[in-house]
């Protein structure tokens, strides 16, 4: 089912949570809403679900205007951050709940068969008689997903689905959610503030800030061609260098870099730690190493430039650098934006 948001607006009292968001989500697509807290991502998800009503704009499911359809009749599957499993029902009863309250009558045998199918799908066979308090967090979230899928929703909506789980479980569930999505082909929209999760899981990532969309694109697009400094910084560690543009060439310290389309004057350059190197001489930004951090997969240097800015760069684990060394930071790659 295709979902279209057309200039959707939502205000809580005086707080403008969502300010005119338009978005097309293709049928069968897996899309992440990514943003810092307060960016309106959960509000957008809840409006798509019908748990909040939009103050303005339109939400369409396919060609149907769903803006004012109540959540009960909207036919969405919603997975809550804290699972929201019914604590007084067994896992099986939780999954069966949607089928039992549905207008479409099913026989108890039919329901039991479907519950068994779903338990198999979420790999929780044999846990149907347990209560939510008796299973782990990761298992609860899988039950929550099975419960949401039980009513054959047109779209699946997940609000920070792995937010309450620890890192290992989270990574495993992420992979597993992608498999389920590929198997069922259901249009899925999920909210996260975790960049890695969004990039790992989604076909397309919607980056939000202050209730507005900043950038929409595939993980590759948002990573390789961030539209502004916010996206650059939000997606991962980024170092800032002041730059000067002259004739579509940027000067960053002693380094030169093409800057097509940028007007002459001051600009901001951002570079990932891995795109930087450190050498004793060469063209780059003069800096002093203040700390060397050793990590399992490499060595991170904290350097201070002459302008007093802190820069973090990743070098090979055996790079011969000591704190106090003076040299230049070289740039293999950088994103240059007009000065803010």
């Amino acid at each position: 089912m295709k979902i279209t948001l057309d200039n959707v607006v939502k205000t809580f009292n005086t707080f403008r949570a969502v300010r005119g968001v338009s978005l097309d989500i293709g049928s069968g697509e897996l899309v992440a809403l990514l943003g810092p807290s307060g960016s309106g991502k959960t509000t957008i998800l809840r409006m798509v679900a019908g748990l909040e009503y939009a103050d303005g704009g339109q939400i369409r499911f396919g060609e149907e205007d769903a803006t004012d359809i109540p959540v009960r009749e909207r036919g969405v599957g919603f997975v809550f951050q804290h699972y929201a499993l019914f604590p007084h029902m067994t896992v099986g009863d939780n999954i069966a709940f949607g089928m039992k309250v549905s207008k479409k009558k099913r026989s108890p045998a039919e329901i039991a068969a479907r519950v068994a199918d779903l338990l198999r799908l979420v790999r929780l066979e044999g846990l149907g008689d347990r209560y939510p308090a008796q299973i782990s967090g990761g298992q609860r979230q899988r039950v929550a997903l099975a419960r949401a899928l039980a009513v054959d929703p047109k779209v699946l909506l997940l609000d920070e689905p792995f937010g309450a789980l620890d890192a290992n479980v989270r990574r495993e569930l992420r992979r597993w959610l992608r498999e389920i999505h590929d198997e069922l082909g259901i249009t899925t929209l999920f909210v996260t503030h975790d960049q890695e999760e969004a990039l790992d899981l989604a076909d397309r990532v919607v980056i939000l800030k202050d209730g507005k969309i900043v950038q929409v694109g595939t993980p590759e697009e948002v990573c390789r061609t961030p539209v502004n400094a916010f996206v650059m910084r939000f997606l991962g560690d980024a170092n800032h260098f002041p730059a000067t543009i002259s004739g579509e060439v940027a000067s960053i310290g002693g380094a030169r870099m093409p800057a097509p389309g940028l007007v002459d004057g001051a600009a901001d350059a951002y570079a990932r730690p891995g795109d930087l190197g450190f050498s004793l001489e060469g063209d780059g930004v003069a800096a002093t190493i203040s700390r060397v951090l050793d990590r399992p997969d490499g060595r991170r240097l904290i350097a201070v430039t002459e302008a007093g800015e802190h820069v973090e760069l990743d070098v090979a684990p055996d790079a011969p650098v000591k704190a106090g060394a003076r040299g230049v930071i070289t740039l293999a790659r950088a994103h240059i934006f007009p000065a803010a």
Partner: protein
Amino acid sequence: MSGSSNASSHRPPRIGESPLVRRALIIGVLVVSAFVIAAPLAVIAVQAFSKGVETYLAAITHPDTLHAIGMTLVTALIAVPINTLFGIASAWAITKFDFPGRRLLLVVIEIPFSISPIVAGVAYLFVYGLQGLFGEWLSAHDVKVLFALPGIVLASLFVTAPFVARELIPLMQAQGRDLEEAAASLGASGLRTFFSVTLPNIRWALLYGVVLCNARVMGEFGAVSVVSGNIRGQTNTLPLHVELLYHDYQTAGAFAAASILAGLAVVTLFVKVALERRGAGRRNRPAFVAEPAGISKETP
């Protein structure tokens, strides 16, 4: 060796005060409880039977006493269900919906707790009494509110209005709206959500509130004494009857009637403890206090 054990015995306790202070405090509490709570109850029992079991039985089977017991039961049978419904409805509204005046409603529900019951009784006099607001209309239509059962029920309703709501609101607030939202997203109607999702998760707290409410309705004196008119054998509830007997110097009778109320209190207490146990420790069942979001404990 002995040095270290010496050192440990001289160390101050890890938490709290020294044993001397601790024991003094415990003894203080025990003494106060004995004099303030246990002794009066014991006196009731002793006095009730002071003139023998026959006198006791005669006292509690006296027609006026039986009538007072009946009055109290009828009042409770009407007032408790009404206030239970009121408590559920107000707690549901306050915790699951946003509407203007929500905070005000929360304060209004608490008013009976902070107002002296006698004030409530007097207020009802002003509203329904002969000189009151509706007094003339009521007497013209031959409806008796004051000095009759309706007045007693109204006063009891007022005094016990907050009991159920007060038990439910904190619990339902802690449970949040996630469960109801989940049920709605699965297609459940409002009523269905209430009966199969909300109610099962609040039922112990609800019963607890009902038990407390019932105890208070049966024991209410102040407000009821103003509106009932104390007509022996007609509008006397059990607490009023106790007072009446006492003023008539029928000490044994007064204590006999009081023993019924005290017995009721003991029963209430047992039910309350049983409820607390059941709510917390049934096998194969999670505790019926929902985990606050996010602080769920992991069980393998």
